[in-house]
Structure formats: structure tokens, C-alpha cells
């Protein structure tokens, strides 16, 4: 007999690859790679009783109203201009441009905001407003502020806002604080 007697025969590892493949395919199929993403907002705290809301001058408020038919009206002081929305639900650029002009006015025009710090965007919606349109408007507002911040950081630091240090980002954010106020939903 040429072969020596051994205690145990070696286990065949040839099928290990098959088992591993099986597991691999299971995890491949169950994996969802989507990352949670969204638009972040901070809600105002509940108003305390007998505290009067501070008066804001009309010129410092940019009102955006989305009514129950998903029509968007916007304007400084009161919602006067009709913002066009095309058939695909895309909001006209004019909303973003209006917000940008309003926030970065810095007291140049008498009927627009005094400074970016004082500028408030008031977003109003009604009971029947669709969530989609609301998000689209929020998106436009965010876009307006993002572009303003980007312009500011390019002016001051010569870089895009995303590429700034956290400290520098804070300075830019402080110059253009995003103030979106949301009034209670109006019935009807």
C-alpha cells in the first residue's frame, strides 16, 4: 500500500465557492443602495401664549402663496405676481430670480428688503395644496439661497460654497441666513 493511513480524510473544499456564491447572490438581490436624501428644514417652535409676534416691515417679507389649485403667487409684501408653471409642473425660473433679487437687495430699492439678514420668505399653502407642488416651491427657494451663497463665496474666497471650510461656510451662511417662515395652513 503506497498511501499512508491518516486520522481523518481532508474535507473537500471545492463546493465552498458555490456556497459563497449563493450567499453573495442573496445579498446582491436584497441590497438597496439608495441613500436617504431630502430637503432639510427647521420648524419654528410653538408660539408661547401672550408673546407678541415681532412686526416685520412689509418690504422685508417675500410672500409665496400656493393655493389649492396649485397656482403659485409671489411678491414682496403680498402675493401679487402669478408664477407660471408649465405642463410638467416645472416652476418658472422667475420665482427663483425674484427671491434672489429680493434677498440681495441690501436696501437699494425702496420696495425690497433692507438686508439679507432681515429678509424673510413667507411660504403659505392651503389645505388642498399638493405636497408635490409644495416641495417644488421649497426646492426653488433652496436653489435661490444656494445660488446666492455660491456667488458670495466665489466673490470672497474664489471658491464654490461646497469647497469652503466649515468655518467659511458658516460665515457665508450667516451673511445669507435662510429664513423661510411658514404660516398655518389656511382652510378652504
Amino acid at each position: 500500500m503506497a498511501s499512508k493511513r491518516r486520522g481523518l480524510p481532508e474535507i473537500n473544499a471545492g463546493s465552498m465557492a458555490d456556497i459563497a456564491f449563493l450567499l453573495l447572490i442573496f445579498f446582491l438581490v436584497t441590497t438597496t443602495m439608495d441613500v436617504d436624501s431630502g430637503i432639510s428644514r427647521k420648524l419654528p417652535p410653538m408660539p408661547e401664549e401672550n408673546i407678541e409676534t415681532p412686526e416685520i416691515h412689509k418690504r422685508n417679507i417675500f410672500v409665496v402663496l400656493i393655493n389649492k389649485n396649485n397656482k403659485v403667487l409671489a411678491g414682496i409684501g403680498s402675493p401679487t405676481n402669478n408664477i407660471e408653471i408649465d405642463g410638467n409642473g416645472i416652476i418658472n425660473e422667475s420665482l427663483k430670480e425674484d427671491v434672489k433679487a429680493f434677498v440681495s437687495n441690501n436696501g437699494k430699492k425702496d420696495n425690497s428688503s433692507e438686508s439679507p439678514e432681515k429678509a424673510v420668505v413667507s411660504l403659505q399653502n392651503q389645505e388642498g395644496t399638493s405636497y408635490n407642488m409644495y416641495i417644488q416651491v421649497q426646492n426653488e427657494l433652496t436653489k435661490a439661497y444656494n445660488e446666492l451663497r455660491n456667488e458670495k463665496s466665489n466673490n470672497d474666497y474664489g471658491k464654490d460654497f461646497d469647497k469652503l471650510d466649515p468655518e467659511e461656510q458658516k460665515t457665508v451662511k450667516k451673511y445669507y441666513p435662510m429664513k423661510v417662515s411658514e404660516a398655518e395652513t389656511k382652510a378652504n
Partner: protein
Amino acid sequence: MSKFKKGGGKSMPAISTASLPDIVFMLLFFFMVTTVMRETTLKVEVKPPEATEVKKMEKKSLVSYIYIGSPTQSQQATFGTKARIQLNDVTFSRKEVGEIQNFINAERLSKDEDEIPYMTTSIKADTDVTMGIVTDVKTELRKVNALKINYSTKKSKETN
């Protein structure tokens, strides 16, 4: 010299597959680590709206989810088609919106005290729901002082 002659005559040697299990295991571990299993089964239909200015959510362990949408087909027999709010595994109608306070308080109890200020509530609402129910949810969140929220949206391609 004879070496070359020999080699020319023979066919290619078989590639060793001994390292195949290792490679597969590597891939397997990668997917095992990255996989996130769904914790809750959705009882409402949620198709988030699309937006361009989205940000990734950070600190997933500190996020509580609120789903808003119309019930899925299997749930429609019991709940109809009106939009409902899902917290964990239970759905609530718009009138029972006060349950959110209990939900947020329960979420807070499960976290460390020093982490509470960083907790975020993600509102995953369907494109077709109306703002009425969303505003009710937001009001409840304000009542329990859970002010950091995130409207869950998909990232859409640049439209302009």
C-alpha cells in the same frame, strides 16, 4: 532550448481557481456590510417627489421616519383610500394625528439623552397627498418640540 519546443507543443495550462472562493467571499462581505434591511413594512404607498437641491441624510440612527400616503392595496379593504400616517408598523388616520407625540417620545426614550437635540424626523410623504395632512403632522411635531425635519425627496436630474 528543449523547453521552448515542449511549451509550444502543449495546450494552455488550466488557470487555478483556488482563489475564487476568496474573491467571492470578499464580495460577499462587502454586500453583507452595506446591506440595510428594511425594518418596517410599508402599509402606505409612498412615492417621494423629486427635487434638485437635495442633501444626503446623516446619522441614520438618529432619524425617525413618518410615512404619509394612501394605504396599499391589501390595506384598502380595512382603511379605504384616504391618506394615512404610518408610524412604525401601525397606520393612523388624520384624526389620530396626536399619536405622533407618543411616537416621538418613544423614539426619544430609546436614544441617549445627549443625542436628543440631534434627532431628525424624516417625513416620507407621497407625491399625491395634500398639504392638509402634512401640516397637521408638522404641527404635532412642533408641539413635542421635534423641530428638525427633512422632507424626503428623490434627486431628479437637472431640468434647466
